[in-house]
């Protein structure tokens, strides 16, 4: 049961890497939002979201990524989303969000 959401961050010189594991859904997405927004405001750096261990995300979670993107753009920064599982990458393609983010392997 990896249905919990865990969020961990690491700092590099010009980016913050955020590791997501488990599931992002309507129940825990507020926690993701608060954490991402705080990271962005505190650091004003590029964001790299590592999704190696992300098993599930819904539109609530995708909407938070979009909101985070608007926020980093205020600081003229970017969001890289990397190591998406195929079933989740598919959701980015369906919604057209793959064109807003820098999607990396």
């Amino acid at each position, binding site marked *: 049961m990896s*249905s919990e959401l865990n969020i961990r961050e690491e700092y590099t010189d010009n980016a913050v890497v955020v590791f997501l594991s488990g*599931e992002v*859904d*309507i*129940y825990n997405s507020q926690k993701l939002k608060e954490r991402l927004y705080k990271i962005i405001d505190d650091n004003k750096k590029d964001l790299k979201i590592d999704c190696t261990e992300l098993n*599930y995300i*819904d*539109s*609530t979670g*995708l*909407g938070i990524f979009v909101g985070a993107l608007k926020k980093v753009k205020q600081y003229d920064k970017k969001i890289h989303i990397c190591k998406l599982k*195929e*079933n989740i990458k598919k*959701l980015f393609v*369906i*919604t*057209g*969000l793959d064109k807003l983010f820098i999607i990396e392997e």
Partner: protein
Amino acid sequence: MITETDNIEIILPFKAEYVSVVRLTVSGIASRMGFDIDAIEDIKVAVSEVCNKLVALGSSVVPRYKIVFSISEESLDIHFYCEDKSIKCIFGDGNDELGVSLISALMDDVSLCPENDYIIYMSKAIEENI
């Protein structure tokens, strides 16, 4: 052709914390039906999007909504119900582009605003490439 259909119903509160319970239930049903892992994930997302919206709307009249899973050899058909008849055409407000695009793309047949006693209908065929 005579085919038997099994129905499984789940009735649950309008609460965000139980959407994950629905996901487990539907993944159990879909995996028992022989859907592959990708299709199971698709169904989980589509079902959750409807639950999310229902939970966000809530009802002042009844505490719970109902999902009926109809299992046949060809497909998994899913109907959402609520006794609060004011809950109709829930995506009609146009606020959920992401959710609606996911549901439409991930399921084979979808009725988001039916003139019927159910709120939403969606279906996934077992072999999509028929």
